[in-house]
């Protein structure tokens, strides 16, 4: 589904990514783990295009998309849920979701997508008429993910979906992510600091350190290697 090879990027003169390569298979949940500041978010933003790639190759569904602008990628079904709560606080939950179906391709399936989103997040249906800014942190996180789903993606990249949430909610987030894979057939690439929860929920894991991929494998492989766990994941 997505194949990234030897990606390099950064900000100004500062290089953040030092040729990490990953591969995400269709219909799986892949996670990219590592502590703060190792370039995980930069990696997602570079794949999405909001940070410009310096070199390397990004292939999505067999097509090279390395230098395509973000709006074209979204149109092709590849989207990103950025870190933090990027929602339209002055609009209602319903309006936020409708904004998500901006693309012509997504607009015609608006009602269908809304039903799907409500079935994944029943709470949002109750909150439909409430201003998004007045929701709790967990609910706001749901809105940002739900809004991304409204654009009818095939693959979704999630940047720290569990950030700042209570442990019980974290579990709920991962359950929803698994539902998105099982019920909607989405391919998911996940960036997380919460190694414990993501190891339990994902199919394949990459461990990033200082802008490089240091290890990869199934969650079992990663868990069974003491070296990786201690050195990079702090478990």
């Amino acid at each position: 589904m997505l194949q990234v090879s030897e990606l390099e990027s950064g900000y100004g003169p500062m290089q953040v990514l030092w040729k990490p390569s990953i591969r995400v298979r269709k219909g799986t949940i892949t996670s990219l783990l590592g502590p703060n500041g190792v370039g995980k978010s930069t990696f997602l933003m570079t794949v999405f295009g909001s940070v410009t790639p310096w070199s390397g190759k990004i292939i999505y569904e067999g097509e090279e998309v390395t230098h395509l602008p973000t709006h074209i990628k979204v149109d092709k079904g590849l989207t990103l849920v950025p870190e933090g709560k990027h929602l339209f606080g002055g609009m209602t939950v319903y309006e936020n979701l409708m904004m998500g179906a901006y693309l012509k391709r997504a607009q015609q399936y608006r009602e269908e997508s809304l039903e799907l989103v409500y079935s994944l997040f029943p709470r949002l249906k109750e909150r439909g008429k409430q201003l998004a800014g007045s929701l709790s942190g967990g609910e706001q996180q749901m809105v940002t993910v739900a809004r991304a789903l409204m654009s009818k993606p095939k693959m979704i990249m999630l940047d720290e979906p569990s950030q700042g949430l209570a442990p019980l909610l974290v579990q709920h987030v991962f359950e929803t992510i698994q539902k998105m894979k099982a019920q909607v057939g989405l391919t998911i690439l996940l960036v997380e600091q919460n190694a414990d929860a993501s190891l339990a929920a994902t199919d394949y894991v990459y461990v990033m350190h200082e802008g490089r991929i240091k290890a990869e494998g199934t969650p079992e492989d990663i868990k069974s290697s003491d070296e990786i766990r201690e050195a990079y994941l702090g478990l």
Partner: protein
Amino acid sequence: MGKRLSTYGPFIPVLALYVIIFLVGKGVQGMWQVMAMLTFYCALGQAFNIFLGMTGYVDFGYVAFLGVGTYGMALSITYLAHQGMTGPAVIIIGFLLALIFPALLSMAVGAVALRLRGAYFAIATIGVNEGFRYLIEGAKIWNGSEGMIFTSELNQVLGRDTASGLSTFWADVYLFIIAALAALVTLHFMRSRIGYALTALREDEDAAKVMGINVTKYKIIAFITSACFAGLVGGTSWALKTPYVFPPEVFEIHYTIEAIIIVLLGGAGTLMGPVIGALIYGLSKYYLSIILPGFQLLIFAPIIIVIIIAFPDGVMGVVKQRLRGTSLARFIE
């Protein structure tokens, strides 16, 4: 009809306000100049709102578009008069240049500056305005710092009577039309995918990108549209009304500040906001200068601060919120 009314209904009260301003100016003795000033502010606010209001980007160099629009009209009249051309065609070509110059400048500025966000964009645009002014003065483009005076050329092109009618009356009527057109375009944007995209990027640019919106494209559309209207305002109010142009005047940052105040007072991103802002700003500026000559700015500044604190979303922002859900709501935007 019902759908069209709900789509373009909010234009009715805006147009009504313009008609009232016009009728007061025409009917009440001695009010024409006041109303003409208000119209200038309305048109300025309405034009600036398309960019500032709809994108949330503050362009401190906005007056440059009025400036080059003024030059567009001035060059057309001066050059074509020397070629022996006369008649309204000269003015029409002038309007075209007053559109093309700001369009080109906004494309050039936009391509560079719109990559910047927030405060960086604002600072970059101050530089553009000042830079352009000194370029004209230093490189002696279009007569450099001496400016251009084209009273006799305008008389030659239109005849003395028409030319004086233009500067005392018709230029202001054109301004009314420009202001109303700018309002109509604003409403059209609001009701289309453009407005949808602009609202998203104003609220949160990162979220807008995730929705698949080509944010650069829509910012540039708003920027160029806004700049073109600014050019028309300059070409009309500054070139036709007063047939001369001096760089320090038409690139005076003061007008940008006024435009920002008007839009924020009235309610950025609303349709009627610029009109309300222009009325509050223009009338209080005018009457304060009569009541307290010399002290007007001292009184004026705190008044503006109080209004901004009382109405953080502008007057129309608050009105819109109050009317939400009522039957009046569809006539207010």
